[in-house]
């Protein structure tokens, strides 16, 4: 009888331990654009995720982290398809991603239908992902496109002396956000960039020669917000066609994913000012350590981590830190975990980061300029660090909403 009792107790214990063992693992999904025009950006994003996980030994809150990756091609529907697969089939509890602006808007809307999963942004940086009707379970520690432009409009107007500018950008939510972020202060100071001097091209456009021909010649400079292969194509063709206007770059136009591409050094881009959440040459021990780790882990990566590796790293690290804080407790619809994320304030390679009440990041922003580094690589030189920029760029939330939604025509500027 005694033995039977023991066996039964053991059986019960085992059956109870069963799910407990499974719960010792946390499934984390990572979604990035491993296909299409932004494939190379997606690759670097995954490096950022791996860096953060490696730093924590693939463990957080006493539990092992299992990483499942998914791929999209920068279109919202591909992002939703990949997200659904990760959430509904693979059963991830935390999702890091997506990469591109309009993907972020779509995933935010999807997040509202999955209240038991927590979504952390990858590097998508469209404004309305968090500004208007945000999702309770979508966090963005990586800041967004208009924040990244902080100080650039003033710099172009005051320091560079530009008064009339043309705009060339991809036709979707992230470049709208960047153009808004750049033009808002530029036009408030008196600069001009009328709607007929703004050129919007589809993502993945290869042949810019006709757009280049259509650019007006009576402007002082061109604001270019293109990413990945699109930016590389434009810059080469601009040089080939003998273009000589100075450029002002969007955050991902002068990022390592463009500057580090294979081929000719693009002379036209040296000296291009830009702004973003990081700077390649920031002289700071935290940043140096981050770059060294990146170079050590990924000899086939870029000479220096791109904006995408940085953004994915920060969001993944935020998830891991919050998991540590709640001891890996994801029960009750991940409530405790989200509370920890909301309160989180932590050191990143680019300074302190926290989130506001709409779960959008507040972080330092870097004003930069492209230079040729000592080893011949093109890098961004830090001109200025603007501390702790929030999403409403210093004004109140209600006042900021009056500026209107980002679009091709906002701000008007003519």
């Amino acid at each position, binding site marked *: 009888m005694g033995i039977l009792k023991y066996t039964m107790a053991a059986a019960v214990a085992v059956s109870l331990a069963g799910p407990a063992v499974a719960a010792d693992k946390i499934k984390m999904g990572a979604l990035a654009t491993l296909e299409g025009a932004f*494939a190379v950006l997606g690759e670097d994003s995954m490096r950022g995720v791996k860096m953060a996980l490696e730093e924590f030994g693939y463990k957080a809150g006493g539990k092992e982290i299992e990483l499942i990756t998914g791929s999209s091609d920068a279109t919202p529907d591909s992002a939703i398809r990949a997200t659904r697969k990760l959430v509904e089939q693979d059963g991830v509890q935390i999702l890091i991603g997506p990469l591109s602006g309009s993907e972020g808007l779509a995933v935010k809307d999807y997040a509202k239908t999955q209240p038991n999963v927590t979504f952390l942004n990858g590097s998508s940086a469209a404004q309305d992902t968090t500004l208007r009707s945000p999702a309770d379970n979508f966090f963005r520690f990586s800041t967004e496109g208009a924040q990244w432009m902080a100080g650039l409009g003033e710099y172009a107007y005051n320091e560079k002396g530009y008064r009339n500018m043309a705009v060339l950008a991809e036709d979707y939510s992230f470049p709208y956000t960047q153009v808004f972020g750049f033009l808002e202060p530029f036009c408030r100071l008196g600069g001009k960039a009328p709607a007929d001097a703004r050129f919007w091209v589809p993502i993945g456009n*290869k*042949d810019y*020669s006709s757009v280049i021909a259509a650019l007006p010649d009576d402007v002082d400079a061109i604001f270019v917000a293109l990413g990945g292969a699109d930016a590389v*194509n434009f810059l080469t*063709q601009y040089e080939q*066609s003998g273009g000589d206007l100075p450029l002002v770059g969007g955050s991902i136009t002068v990022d390592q994913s463009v500057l580090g591409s294979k*081929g000719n050094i693009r002379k036209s881009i040296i000296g291009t000012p830009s702004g973003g959440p990081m700077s390649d040459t920031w002289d700071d021990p935290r940043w140096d350590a981050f770059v060294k780790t990146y170079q050590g882990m990924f000899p086939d990566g870029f000479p220096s981590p791109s904006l995408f590796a940085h953004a994915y790293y920060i969001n993944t690290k935020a998830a891991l830190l919050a998991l540590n804080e709640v001891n890996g407790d994801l029960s009750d619809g991940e409530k405790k975990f989200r509370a920890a994320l909301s309160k989180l304030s932590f050191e990143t390679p680019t300074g302190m980061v926290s989130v506001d009440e709409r779960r959008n990041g507040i972080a330092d922003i870097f004003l930069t300029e492209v230079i040729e580094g000592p080893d011949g690589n093109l890098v961004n030189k830090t001109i200025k660090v603007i501390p702790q920029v929030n999403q409403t760029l210093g004004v109140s939330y209600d006042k900021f909403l009056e500026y209107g939604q980002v679009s091709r025509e906002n701000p008007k500027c003519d």
Partner: protein
Amino acid sequence: MRNFVERHTFWAIVILVAAALLVWMIFAVWPDWLVQMLGRKKTFVNTLLNGITLGGLYFLVASGFTLIFGLMRNVNLAHGAMYLLGGYIGYEISEYTGNWFLGLAVAFLAVGISGILLQVLIFRRMEGDDLRQTLVTIGISIIAADVMLAVWTGTTYQFSPPEWLFGATVLPVISVIKSSGAEVYIKYPIYRLAVLVVAVAVGVGLWLFLNRTKIGMMIRAGVNDREMLSASGVNVQLVFSVVFALGAGLAGFAGVIGGTALSIAPGEDVRYLLASLVVVIVGGLGSISGAAIGALIIGLAEQFGLAYFPTYGVVLTFLIMVVVLAVRPQGIMGER
């Protein structure tokens, strides 16, 4: 020509007037009302040239595609993958040797050989089963795209063409006359002009090959009646291999030419496959002259769309396709 003028006098006059107008628009200094209507002359002339040169590039890719289809009734959907493969191989060779022309030659040969291998190892086994062959080419293109992504990663590659091909040249076309009386000439990239020259040369070469050589004669006979050709004692398999090698080689060749004009990156395969499909649908499947006309139309449509209404420019290409399919389903030069 004379026949055409006699039979369609009205249309001949229309075409003549349009051509004269175009020449005038290119060389004359635009009066103000025209600038008001169409924007600056620089934009128009550059866009026109861009459209023609892009058409040249599309012709290089689509000519191989249409050649293979014409003879073998095999819609080779791996044609885009061959374009991309040619680009990558050309890049590796030209980086390694420092000789861009060597890269071009090796890309042509290597992709041509891969075409022969495909024909001998795979398509021969499903002879006469067109649908199965087409489905297999889809499979090959997917696998090839992933293998290439694994080998060359997602990075964008840019070729370094010889110095003299890089940069812009001044065309003898006046853009505007400044108020000071100085004439401003239009600048245009040398490389794109070179693309056009190469495309014309390849077109003429193909015409000579098909119309003036014995094997070209066999190919044309095969296009008309495959069974008859084999019954008359010609080794059809050999002819098939030659055509496949040539078609694939042209795709690889175009990979280097196009990769230098624009760039090489994953996704280009699908883009050029789609462009080739649209070009041959508009021009007529299986016809080389149709591919030339189709490529020119699509190239111009894409560029004018991009310059004058960038947001909705993409629609124009497909609109043309829809119109052609509705009015002349076999394509402009296609035969029923």
